[in-house]
């Protein structure tokens, strides 16, 4: 992952479940850059996965969330100062 060498002001995104196949420590650093909405962030994460079809397919089925709630509306402005995460389809129990 080239993003591992991103500058310290990079946006840190936690990934869970099946994403650990691709990023064992579960942390992805993306350039905040132009990411203003959840949809923007999704594109940044997509870019970080390059052409890894399996990761991209899992991402497609995933939701973004803060520690408080799932960000259903992806046109929503990215919350600042809140940890962000990518949640693949869930299967507790």
């Amino acid at each position, binding site marked *: 992952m080239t993003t591992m060498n991103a500058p310290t002001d990079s946006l840190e995104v936690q990934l*869970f479940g099946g994403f650990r196949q691709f990023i064992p420590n579960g942390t992805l650093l993306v350039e905040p850059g132009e990411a203003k909405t959840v949809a923007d962030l999704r594109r940044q994460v997509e870019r970080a996965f390059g052409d890894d079809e399996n990761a991209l397919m899992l991402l497609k089925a995933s939701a973004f969330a803060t520690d408080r709630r799932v960000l259903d509306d992806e046109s929503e402005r990215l919350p600042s100062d809140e940890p962000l995460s990518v949640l693949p389809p*869930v299967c507790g129990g």
Partner: protein
Amino acid sequence: MSTTNMHLAVTDRPLDGNSALEFCSAPGHGAVDLFIGRVRDFNQGRSVVGVSYDLHAALCRNVFAEIAAEALDRWGRETRLWLTHRSGRLDVGEASVVAAASSRHRDEAFKACRYLVEQMKHRAPIWKQEHYVDGDSEWVKGHALCGHG
């Protein structure tokens, strides 16, 4: 999270049905229903030796709290609820989730307990990786949390 009438938690330690039965009781409650989910030795044609649970702890607690609040709305404020989910690696037979509900009458207890389980399965940020007897491991497919999943 534990209030006077609900106990909601995620933990990497073994789960215990008895604590749930003790918590979900009151002199006016004639019924308690308890559900325990356990790791099975066989799933979709493959022999399983264990399961690793990954979860988003902070969000999980929030989702559990939402689900529990909905259950109280539906089956009465005096209902007592318990919902705990385990994280980390579990062997076959170990409990992954314990849900319980007590209330005056049995219908509410059964329904509230089942509600906790179903909603947890569909909404809580928890993921399961099965470990097979042949040494292979696989993340189990689940329910998408996004509309386009």
